[in-house]
């Protein structure tokens, strides 16, 4: 469904999931550490600005911190620890999810956004709420 992207290779079989773009990697390892041209022609077909230039820099950690102070991956780990196994896996089997994941038409751009909506569930605070009600009812007796 998607045009072919350049093959990415993982930099290490262990540690974080860090992947390196082959075109970037090649150019970054050339004598001139700054990319002097755009990406390969097949990238241009994705309507990418063809004059974007990348570079490797020792300032990368500072620059990434400067882009945003927020660390949503921390929140993700917290939520995963709270989540109950197997709950929600059915969502991955729905035709809406599969249609979004695989894409269709217009170079895969149809169904590019999937919005899942609903009301809040019966979470732990609702159990607390029920407990409080039960306690109050006992006190009323």
């Amino acid at each position, binding site marked *: 469904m998607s045009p072919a*992207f350049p093959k990415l290779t*993982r930099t290490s079989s262990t540690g974080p*999931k*860090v*992947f*390196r*773009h082959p075109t*970037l*990697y090649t150019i*970054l390892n050339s004598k001139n550490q700054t990319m002097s041209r755009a990406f390969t022609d097949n*990238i241009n077909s994705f*309507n*990418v600005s063809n004059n*974007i*230039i*990348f*570079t*490797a*820099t020792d*300032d990368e950690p500072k620059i*990434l911190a*400067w*882009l*945003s102070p927020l660390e*949503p*991956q921390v929140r*993700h780990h917290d*939520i995963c620890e709270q989540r*109950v196994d*197997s*709950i*929600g896996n059915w*969502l*991955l089997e729905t035709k809406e*999810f599969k249609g979004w994941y695989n*894409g269709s038409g217009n170079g*895969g*751009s149809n*169904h*590019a*956004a*999937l*919005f*899942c*909506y*609903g009301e*809040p*569930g*019966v*979470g*732990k*605070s*609702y*159990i*607390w*709420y*029920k*407990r*409080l009600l039960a*306690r109050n009812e006992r006190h009323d007796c």
Partner: protein
Amino acid sequence: MLTGRDGSSVVIDHLCDQVIEQDMAVACFYYDFASREAQSPTNMLGSLLKQLLSGLGAIPVKIVQKFRGQKKAIGGRRLQLPDIVEMCAAVTSLQRTFICVDALDECVPRHRLEVLGALGQILRGSPNTRIFMTGRSHIRGVVERELGERTTSVSISSREDEIVTYLHARLGKDTNPAAMDGFLENDIMKSIPEEIPETYVPARDPRNRCDSYTDWCK
């Protein structure tokens, strides 16, 4: 039982598993009502860009130049939203990219419009990008309006078997189990599946940060 937040984490985990085998990138963002002021569009989109660049291992020269030049102006200033969106569109075009945004309803309304506009720009510039969002149903209209016909909306609701599984798991983790008795546990297991709330808003209740239900009853 599936909440929007669980749905987001399930999808993000699933996508992260795919990253190992496929050429793709994943970035996520969780809105939180308690942090809504800090979660400005600039910080939110900047966070997505930060995650995507972390995976690439290289920085656009334009960003490097802005970073080095910004210290000369009013003691330092952040990258502006249009620049962030432009860079996001460029970086997402390098590889198949999935962006997941949880609890859009907990975003400040005026920020939500800006963020949806920015996400729409990214999609237009990068047709192979996929965006997954969750939120309460009252924002469905604005999501579909801002992202147009690219959007598919799907209702997620609780399934009875998941409610029972969830309740058993939560009750098993109560940090003060001595305060739970058989009568109350039976009441919870019977009544909650029958009363899926339509109006109660646990996500916005600060009490849901407590791990022990009994602590709150003291």
